[in-house]
Each structure stands twice: as C-alpha cells, then as structure tokens.
C-alpha cells in the first residue's frame, strides 16, 4: 500500500471510531476531531517511534494516529479498567507514553510547558523529539510564549503544532487573537514556522516532515499551524453557534474525501477499494466498542491507587 493510501486509511479509522463512539452519548460527553483528522494523521506521519506526542483534550485522532490500540482508547473513553489509563484519565487525558503518545491534557495550553520538558528529557537522553498539538485557543495563553522562548533559547527538539480549527468553543479566532496567521507568533523567537491547509493530509505531512527534520537535526523548535475545521460541536454536550452555511462550507472540504480522490486520481486505490477500507474501519470500530462495552469498570475501592 502506498503512503498516501495509508494516510487515507488512518483517517478512515479515526472517523469510523469517533462515529461509533458518538453512539454512546449515555457515557458522558466527548471531544471529537471530526473534520480535523488530517492534522493528527499528517503530523504523526512525520514522527518516529522514539518521539513523543502531546495533545490538548481533543485527542482521539492523535492517539489513534500515533498507533495506540483503538480497543484500549475506546475502553478508556468509556471509563473501563482496560483503557489506556485504567479508566482513570478518560476523555481529555488519554496517554500511552510507551507508544510515543505522551498524552492529552485538558487544560488549554497546559500541555505546552510540559512538552518542552519532555523535549528536554528526550534530547538529554539522546533520542527522539517531542511534538505538541494545541488549538488556536491556546495561542492566547502565556504558556505558549514561555514555551517558545525557552525552547528557542535552549534549542529544544520541540515541534509545536497548532491545530487551528478557527474556534475556541464559540469564540472565533479573530475575536480572541491578534496574530494572523498564528504561525506569525513564532517569528520573534526566530524559529521556522509554517501555516498550511490542515484539511490536506499530505500538505500537513510534508510540512511536518520538513520541520521535524529541522528539529531532529538540532536546529531547535519549529512551529506548524494547520488550518482545519471542526465538523461537530465543541464537545458532544456543547451547543452549536456557527451558521449552517459555514458548516456546510467546512463539510465541503472533507480531508478524507479529498485524500480518497487524490488516491483515485493517482491510481493508488479505486473507489471500491476505498469503500472496502472504510467498511473495514467501521467494523474495527464496532469491534472496539463491543470490547470496551464488555470490559469492567474499575473498582470503587481502587480510588486511592496511584495517587502518589
């Protein structure tokens, strides 16, 4: 299978996974990446096994793109003992450092300084880089500034990835953030920065590959802004505020459809093959959901375990 097809299939798996999980509204709200799959998938295509990825609370796509077992992710999101975090982290806190997914953190911008520390540890231990995904919302936070500055002064191996879906809950980017594009934030710190179409998985991947090469080569941090669009509401329990027209326009640039068309155009996969992959992804998601449903909850008596 070609690399382009792999990108497509990973996005299909994420989409199928989230759509399957969306059926479980009874299990608490979720933060989906529907529409934003290309960002996580493109970035992860540029990372290696020794690297670590940190994300914001919106983390399902990233965890799956990084290769974390979907059954364990599903179990975690449903609060089961077999989850990645033994059911204790849940939505917003998925983690599996052993798979290079250092984890999600639901405090907006709260993952940035942590990521710089992870980058430092990796560099002092001699292998790997850290990548950190955050939303446009995090760009107003001081932690980004502090992180960019220290990372630049110390030349930390850190790739900062702004998954800019244009909104912080209901607040549009322009109402909250003066810089335009957000990648401009990196300029004073004299680190390479790129702003790309986050709905184009290959564009994301290509930019990420270039910046990762810089970071891995000891050049210090880099900044990648991916302009994406979120199809669903902020979380499954948040009310929608965007006009229908805007949402329709967003839906029109579906990263999965675009990649499928690209694969077809290039002759890397025909429509039937793509449909088969999609069916496979849906079957796997359904299986993950069944496995998670069947798994036990943690015991109430375990509430004081792993506190310190």
């Amino acid at each position: 299978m070609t690399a382009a097809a792999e990108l497509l299939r990973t996005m299909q798996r994420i989409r199928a996974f989230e759509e399957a999980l969306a059926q479980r509204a009874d299990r608490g709200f979720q933060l989906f990446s529907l529409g934003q799959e290309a960002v996580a998938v493109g970035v992860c295509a540029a990372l290696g096994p020794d690297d670590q990825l940190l994300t914001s609370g919106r983390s399902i796509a990233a965890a799956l793109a990084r290769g974390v077992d979907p059954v364990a992710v599903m179990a975690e999101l449903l609060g089961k003992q077999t989850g990645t975090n033994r059911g204790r982290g849940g939505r917003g806190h998925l983690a599996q450092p052993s798979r290079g997914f250092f984890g999600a953190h639901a405090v907006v911008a709260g993952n940035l300084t942590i990521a710089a520390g992870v980058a430092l540890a990796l560099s002092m231990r001699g292998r790997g880089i850290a990548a950190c995904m955050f939303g446009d919302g995090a760009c107003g936070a001081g932690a980004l500034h502090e992180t960019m500055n220290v990372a630049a002064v110390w030349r930390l191996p850190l790739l900062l990835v702004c998954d800019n879906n244009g909104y912080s809950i209901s607040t549009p980017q322009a109402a909250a953030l003066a810089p335009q594009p957000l990648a401009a934030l990196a300029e004073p710190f004299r680190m390479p920065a790129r702003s790309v179409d986050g709905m184009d998985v290959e564009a994301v991947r290509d930019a990420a590959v270039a910046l990762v090469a810089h970071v891995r080569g000891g050049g210090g941090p880099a900044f990648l802004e991916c302009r994406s669009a979120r199809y669903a509401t902020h979380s499954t329990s948040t009310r929608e505020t965007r006009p229908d027209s805007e949402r329709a326009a967003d839906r029109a640039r579906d990263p999965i459809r675009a990649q499928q068309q690209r694969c077809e155009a290039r002759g890397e996969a025909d429509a039937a093959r793509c449909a088969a992959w999609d069916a496979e992804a849906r079957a796997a998601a359904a299986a993950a959901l069944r496995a998670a449903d069947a798994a036990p909850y943690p015991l109430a008596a375990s509430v004081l375990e792993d506190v310190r």
Partner: protein
Amino acid sequence: MSAAAPAPRVFFREAIGRALAEAMGSDPTLVLFGQDIGRFGGAYREFTGLFERFGAQRVRDTPVAEAAMIGIGVGAAAAGLRALVSITYMDFLMLGLDPLVNYAAKACYKTGGQVRVPLVVKATAGARGQGVAHSQCIEAWLMSVPGLTVVAPATVADAYGLLKSALRHDGPVVFVDHKRLYPTAGELPTDAAEVPFGQARVCRRGDAVTLVAHAYMVRVALAAADELAREGIACDVVDLRSLAPLDVATLAASVARTGALVTVEEGQATCGVGAEVAARVREARGGEPFRVARVAALPAPVSSNPILEAACLPDAARVTTAVRTLLS
C-alpha cells in the same frame, strides 16, 4: 418576601443572570469578562441575554488566558470600573492567582488605602464528570488570603443575593458557583434582597448534631439529615454561604446546642473548610467540649470516571455514617 406575589421558581443560572442584569443596569461601570460569555451566554447559559442588552463593551469575550482575564479585571477595577471575571472552572483560577492574590488582595493594604479593587471572580467549582483538572474545589486556599472575600451559595436565593452583594462590595470577592447547582431550581421572590457577607443560614433545625456545609454539599447534608431524621437523629444544618468572613457566632450557637459538629465539603479535608470551621468553633466555645468529624473528598484526584468520581466525593451515605459514628 412580598406577601402579594408568590415567589417564582427559577433555575440557578437564572438567579445569577438576574443579579448580573440588575447590577449591570444600575451600575454603568460594571464590566464582565469571560470565555464565551457573550453571544454564547456562558458555559451554563448564566450570561444569556447580557451581551444583547449591554453590548460588547461591557460583556467581553476573552481569549483563553486566565492570568490576563483576572489581571485585566483587577486593573480595571482598581482604576475605577467594577469588574466581574468568569472563570469557567475553578481549577483554572490557579492560572490567575498571581494577579488575584499578589495584587488584588493586597492593593488596598499596600497602597495605604489609595486603591480599592471592586472585583468579583466567579469560579465554577466541583465535580460533574469532567475529570481531574476540571473538578477541583480550592475555596479553602482563597479563604486564607487576607483581603479576599469568599462566598459560595447553595440556593437560588443566595446565588442571587450573594452575587448582588459581591457586585456592590468595594474589595475583591470570589463567588463560587458549584456545577451541580446549575440543574437546581428554587424560589426567587421578585423583591429578593442582597445577602450580606458573613451570615450563615440555618436551613434545618435539630439538636443532635450540627452539619455544616456550603455550596452543593448543603444539599448532600440536607439529604443526610432527612435520612437521619427517620432514625430519630435531628440535625441542625448550617449553610455557611460566606466562607470569608465566616459566621462563627451562628456556628458556635448551633454547636452549643448540639454538642456535635460534622463538617461536609467537596474539597479536600486537609487544611480545608471543615478544619477551619472546627477550629473557629472551638475557639469561640472557649474550651467547652464538643465532638467533631469531617467529611470531605478522599485524598485523590477526582476522575471523570463515574465509579471513581462517586467513590471520591462525599455523599449522603458518608455523611450519615459519619454522624452515626460520631454520636455512637
């Protein structure tokens, strides 16, 4: 309460919205700051309609930048406006403690009375399935800060009345609104009044034991009292309402009658509200003995996992057990 009109029942968010709307209407210097409080109306729709009525100058959507939100609120208040800053979850207040504690709480003192900071920080506390970094109750930290007033309503009437008082106070106030109160409703007379700081509310009379709680835990304490009443144990239930200043007189008077104190809080027991209440009552009672027990969260982060969250937090069963153990 007006004799004529029966008090309408309103939701918690409506009580807050009404207090805000009235204060905005009567005080043109009042400005609101918060994430998604404008057209969106706030996480719990408690700001609904304010943006439309008072405009973007006075109802300000902010970036996700809690330090700046509080700092700007503080500076604006110190320089002649009145500010309310909405912090979506109290956990994020940690990001803004520097301007709140190191500046606002000290401004009047350090300037020798030149600067006053009429600021309200509304911080939504407590657990409701949102996980380890969105569930904390750190009001005990704030109680300890000289210069800060801290209030935490448990009812619709107190949400309204305490917020009105906070919005007229000339120093910094933290207003703690608990997530689990948002689905609750209660009576709010159209002529509802401000609730002064420093006055607890005895919400149930009994003489076997004093239960002390604030915010959502008042409901838990009342549920426990209901159950205990069936066993013939009559509880005095005191809703603190105001954590700083504390109404020690009401607490001490209750304990003088009951001889037993059980404190209930959703935050940690360690250095918590209950430890302070017990210490103050003891100081006020001048050595007269009484029994004490504390009910609080277990010493663990509060997971979003429903099993673990429930295991961590105090509920009526834990309160009744504590009371029975204490009295036995």
